[in-house]
């Protein structure tokens, strides 16, 4: 896929992965617009992209759980963009949350699920219809290796990411005939504010390396991408551990 002059909206752009991805896309000549829940920071990111890539990057407010606002946001970006419309959407928002708290407070569990799954379903419902009607476009969804198998240490987050991956899979199946590409990204550990200072991190990748993998996958028309690549094999091993054994493991 040629990214030149494609107009792309990145949701959750304050994430380091998302920012690196926005830069990688802009380097390829795409017009990148950014949205997130902290508008002050989002505006800084938009300005940065404008200065670096000499383009007009716009900033928008986006709250995953404010479902009603999602359609308006897409319309706004499209109309601000004039004839460029919208060619691609990146769903990068997500929240690790507090697993321990979520085990006793449903509100916490719900917030994690909304930030990783329901919010994504809501915005993608509108985006998918738009791309389908338009007959082209792409969707990049950042899921996680944590969604490949449930573990006691993060199964609320993991199940929301797993559900998101399944949703993307179904969407891909539906949109394939309309020429719309749907990519599921499954990062391993990445050096972002989600992981900084946490115990038990290993093989931590840089946001830049992950962003490069994603753009490579986009250009090569891939469907599912583990990044860095070796996580595919790590997860394969983890998935093949029989449940009676896995159940007793400390993970």
């Amino acid at each position, binding site marked *: 896929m040629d990214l030149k002059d494609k107009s792309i909206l990145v949701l959750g752009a304050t994430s380091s992965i998302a920012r690196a991805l926005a830069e990688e896309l802009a380097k390829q000549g795409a017009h990148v617009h950014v949205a997130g829940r902290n508008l002050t920071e989002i505006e800084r990111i938009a300005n940065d992209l404008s*200065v*670096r890539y000499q383009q007009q990057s716009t900033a928008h407010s986006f709250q995953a759980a404010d479902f009603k606002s999602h359609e308006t946001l897409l319309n706004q970006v499209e109309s601000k963009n004039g004839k460029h419309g919208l060619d691609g959407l990146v769903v990068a928002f997500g929240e690790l949350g507090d697993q321990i708290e979520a085990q006793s407070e449903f509100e916490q569990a719900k917030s994690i699920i909304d930030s990783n799954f329901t919010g994504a379903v809501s915005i993608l419902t509108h985006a998918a219809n738009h791309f389908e009607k338009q007959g082209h476009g792409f969707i990049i969804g950042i899921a996680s290796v944590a969604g490949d198998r449930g573990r006691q240490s993060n199964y609320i987050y993991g199940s929301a990411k797993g559900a998101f991956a399944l949703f993307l899979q179904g969407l891909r199946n539906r949109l394939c005939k309309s020429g719309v590409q749907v990519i599921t990204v499954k990062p391993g550990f990445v050096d972002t504010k989600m992981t900084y*200072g*946490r115990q038990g991190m290993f093989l931590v990748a840089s946001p830049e390396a992950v962003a490069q993998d994603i753009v490579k996958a986009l250009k090569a028309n891939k469907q599912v991408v583990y990044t860095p690549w070796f996580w595919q094999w790590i997860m394969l091993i983890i998935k093949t551990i029989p449940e009676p054994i896995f159940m007793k493991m400390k993970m």
Partner: protein
Amino acid sequence: MQNQWSAVNSGPLTGWGRYPVVAAKTVRPENWSAVDNYVKNANSDALIARGMGRSYGDASINDNGYTILLERFDRFISFDNNSGDLHLESGVTLDEIINVFALRGWFPAVVPGTKYVTVGGAIAADIHGKNHHRDGSFCNFVKAFTVIVASGERVLCSRQENSDLFWATVGGMGLTGIITDVHMTLKPIESVYVEKTEIKAKNLDAVMSLFDEHEKNYQYSVAWIDCLARGNDLGRSILMLGNSIAKGDERIKHLSNPLSLKEKRQIQVPIDSPDWLLNSFTMGTFNSLFYAKQMSNHHEGIADFESYFFPLDAIGSWNRLYGKRGFIQHQTVFPEETSREALKTLLTMSSENGWGSFLAVLKRFGPQDGWLSFPRPGYTLTLDIAVKDGLFEFLKELESVILNYGGRIYLAKDAFLSAEGFRKMYPRFNDWQKVKAKYDPKNTFSSHLSQRLEIR
């Protein structure tokens, strides 16, 4: 809600010289409201900002509270292509500025020996480059910046507005607060090439007269001194002069784009190497320059900005070349009147006691504003010294000699200076202290360096 200090990385932390090592608690915020919260909720914890950690000693480490990494605040805010005015965040590195703006014909007006420093670190140490004799320090090209002070308030300061905070923060080693945004000016360039002239000098007197004779005709000047030379050869050196090359110049006509710096591959140094490796590397370079062209004392050539300004950046983590115990870099400046005698004494002391530093760097500064800024008119000498037994005593002795000559030690490279020595070397510390008391009465911003120097 996550606790304020939940994402803390605990572990050993050092400056570039890998000495001293402290047990640090480090945070890496990615949005400014997180930084505001750290400052507002610091209570009795000391805080210190850290950019790329390229200061050699203990300026950006802190074992008494938290070290705040600013590397993720690396966003440009605006740029005016007509004036070169650049508004940006303090965590942007000179490397990034060069990547984005060199091709558009703009370059940082002052660069140190590495491009991997942040704008915040460059202001806090008020860094100097090979053009100091002409252009002064980094802050001569900084118009204004915003500082988060201990109250949590953000104060915009410049030479006109809140000028006390401006002058206390320039060279203030992060001790007045955290610099967030900066207004600076880039300088226009026509190419990324320098014409360089190298002149051999048989000893210190010779190189000093060469500085006198040539400096005014060149934008850049610095000399490499062979520290092993003694007696009549003491101060044997090569003076390296340079001027930028204009775009139509014959020598770069064949280039498709005179503003393009080709990406170079870095060689990484993966493990701690024996000490002799760096010494033989730099010595080899020196000797090949000094002896290769025995016939001519004068050598001319061209070099691109990268290899000219940042030769060591071609080797990643070259600080490991100094072996496990680390090393210190020691930079002093002396008044014009005492420079000659002082340099002779220092060179003799370091070579006689086998502390070499096989190579030293000599440069002459011009005038400089800034209360704690290091530069002042006179000669500045930089020595690399490996950490080994007896170093502390040697540096004590050196300090008293330096004080006798009215010299001053550069804080961005220091790990040993005493509290009394510091006060004698920086006469405007009294003015500085008043501003510190005004904006940071509880001494929230504090580092291993400020604790050692009893700055509060």
